[in-house]
């Protein structure tokens, strides 16, 4: 699964993993973070960066279902694992209820922290079907947003929960 290739004294990693449900093989310089591999080597620019030091949370993705900061995760650590990014949220040509709700209710202003908010909220909803406002705050507390003041984000997550409860099949479809 994980191979190191030596070219001219420099090491490159060759890694197989699953991204958004799809099997992917990718080769990259060993120092690269998951963030860099996603954005630069796989063209998945939906995942953003605000500091590359683990401070802002903008680069959050799900690694085996758990939120991680992709700027602090090495690409080589992800061999054989499942990564979910914002590009993997929509399914069957339909947006995830979280995406719909954030778009409808002002949960995204500039949109820069939005991918991180979305995947982090998705991880929360996979653990807690109907989280309280406090649980939502806690789950999203590692992602900074400078635009919204967070309130419309909280409301969007709550609205998504309501919509998912109304049509539970939709949620299963997404998680599959």
């Amino acid at each position, binding site marked *: 699964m994980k191979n190191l290739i030596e070219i001219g004294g420099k090491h490159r990693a060759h890694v197989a993993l699953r991204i958004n449900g799809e099997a992917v093989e990718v080769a990259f310089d060993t120092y690269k973070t998951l963030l860099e591999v996603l954005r630069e080597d796989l063209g998945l620019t939906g995942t953003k960066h605000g500091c590359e030091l683990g401070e802002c949370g903008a680069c959050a993705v799900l690694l085996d279902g758990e939120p991680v900061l992709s700027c602090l995760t090495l690409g080589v650590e992800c061999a054989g694992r499942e990564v979910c990014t914002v590009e993997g949220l929509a399914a069957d040509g339909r947006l995830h209820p979280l995406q719909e709700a954030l778009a*409808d209710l002002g*949960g995204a202003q500039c949109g820069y922290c939005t991918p991180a908010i979305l995947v982090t909220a998705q991880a929360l909803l996979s653990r807690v079907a109907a989280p309280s406002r406090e649980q939502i705050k806690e789950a999203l507390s590692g992602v900074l947003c*400078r635009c919204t003041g967070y309130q419309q984000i909280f409301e969007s997550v709550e609205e998504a929960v309501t919509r998912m409860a109304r049509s539970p099949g939709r949620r299963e479809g997404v998680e599959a």
Partner: protein
Amino acid sequence: MSDTTRKPPATDRFGVIGVPRRRVDGRAKVTGQTRFADDLALPRMLHARLLRSPVPHARIRRIRTARARKHPGVQLVLTGKDLPNEFGILPVSQDEEPLCSEHVRYVGDPVAAVIARDELTAFEALDLIDVDYEPLRTYATPEDSLGHPEPRIHDYGEEGNIHKRAAFDFGDVDAALAEADEVLEDLFFYEGNTHLPMEQHAALAAVDADGKLTLWSSTQTPHYVHRALARVLELPAAHIRVIACPNGGGFGGKSDIFNHEMVVAKAALLLDRPVKICLTREEVFYAHRGRHPVLMRMKTGFKRDGSITGMQLETLVDGGGYGSYGVASLLYTGALQTVTYHVPRYRFRGCRVFTNKPPCGPKRGHGTPQPRFGQEIQLDKAAERLRLDPAELRLRIVEQPDTLTANWLRIGTIGLAECIRRVVEVSDWNDRFRKLPEGRGVGLACGSYLCGAGLPIYWNKLPQSGVQLRLDRSGEVTVFCGATEIGQGSDDVLVGIVAEVLGIDPFDVRCVTGDTGLTPVDLGSYSSRVTLMMGNAAIQAAERARELIASAVAEQLELPVSRIGFGGRRVFDVENAERGMDWREAVGLAEERHGTLGTVGSYTAPRPAARFKGGGVGPSPAYSYTAAVVEVEVDTSTGWISVPRVWIAHDIGRALNPTLVRGQVEGSVYMGLGEALMEEQAYRRLPPKLSGALVHKFPSMLEYKSLTTHDMPEVVTELIEDPEPNGPFGAKEVGQGPLLPIMPAVANAVYDAVGVRIDEVPITPDKVLKALDDKAKGGPGRYGPARFPEVEWPEAMQVPPPWEDGDGKAVNDPERKRAAKLAKVL
């Protein structure tokens, strides 16, 4: 008056306007498909990094780049001599070099650039550049700069290290203060802070196949970047295209012209390959252009009934290392004191100095939050002195609508009284103020902001916003405008207005914005100008398109044009809605009758009433108003302040998309609380053994504190809709105004909670504890600045207020007198 100035429509029923709805770019944002500048990549693209000065103030003796040039993978190394032309956002402050050639002015000032095959290689090569610096005296504070004229940070400006001074007298303020029953004099300090947009600035330059340059950038002002590139690169502007990518947050921090934009453009031209740069987070703190630290001395006279007899304000403004927007920022510290409450006589003295810190510029509220902080705290103190409720005091002195102020600002609608009444009601103010248990308190404050600067940054009589529409037989409508989407929803305002006028759905409209190669000029996303200016231009373009379609449909239906209505993607007989046709058919008919369809609209702001020099800062086609009540809980053992709730009412004129309006209000509350409680762009000296340099205290997001989800209180937002005749559909701004009352409302609430006055921001626990300690020892229980340094003010411009037979002009001309005196000396 502009020909686009219009009365608001008589009806309150719209199809799109006023309806809460998904923003047109909502889907792109939630799918991660919004393409920010750093998301772009082009074939053969190279990467740039900047070498920045590690010393705060120095002459550059020599730069050696040979080793860096030889580093494998390096394509190009640039230094100041490669880019000799200076630039700057204001015509009067062309003081920045793309790369410093002889003089560095702050830690972080760029001196060289490496362009390499990848970022890592470029970064490695920076270490191979040797710069020999000859250190100069470091100016850390305005007092330093006032006290030492030499060496100069810049060889322009007024004198020594004073960049600019301003002095205005609008009536006899000494006489006004003498007539007062109570005179309050206070010192306030507003610490600098920064925008901290989540997106780091990025830019990508490439030479097109036909040899022309394109720059993609995270900029709020592509038009000004376009002009600066032409000047710096000595290329015809027509051969340069600037595309503003959607900004991942701006807040004013991307409205300047930046070194890195010039550098990648030059490198792309020299190498004929695309060159990209993305600033690191640390570099974003150096790019700065954030809130100016301002020391204020404010003296106001009150009659017993609360009315103000006169006001005097002095501001000392710490500009940092360059001019940036600073001359405007300075004038804004004195411009808007008169638009909220009636101030019959007003005196302003302001001084901006250069210091060896990253340059300050415009941040949300641009120059006005600092004096607003002072003014609203002073009113709280005055209310106590006069034994009036702070809300009642303000209601007594609110400025009247349709008036000219003492400093010649023309106010149209003013919903401030209604805002105050509304927040008093929803916050249960009367049951809370001075009635909550010790440690808990509420504070009230107000504010006002421009709906667009009345004048452009460089003098011209051209439209401030242009909109173009194209329609064709497919039914497609495309709207073009130079305005820039920075997250605030400018694309949505544009499309919403076009859709409203044409009776179609916003998602039917294609939107092209912020591209100097394709879109008509709009001056950019700053000064809260977009909704009003672009909005009026959009109405004009859309109404012209509507006329073309209506005439064609009227002919087809054999009806008078006045009977043609638009709505629900149909064009129909308003007296018999069944009779008509769908949108696509109607556009086809219009194309058949008129030929290829296209319309334009433009907006130019009304001419300011002020006709004195310096009177160009402050005038606006309209002013928004806000009132807020903040509740705090103060822990007297730790000084910790928590904010459980904020109630805020904003005079929006009309909410075009209430969902987005609310988002702007809540975002302003959020940013205001950050400024009030924790955000500061502060500096420290390195220990002497480490050079003693003046450095940013904490150029990282971990240490530069901002509110997280846990810190953000519940916000109750009330929108006051009193349509403004100059606004599109009556709309006013909302992006900046709601920030203004938050900081003073927090300070006033802390006083209500624990009886201490914190006359500066940020209001941190240590300051609260010091003030509590002072109070316990029998002192006044105040924390804040103790002195205002001596500033030699120039002769003031005397401008009589409108009610003292003024005509908007100065009765003296100190500038000309000074020039004549200087000529005589020479």
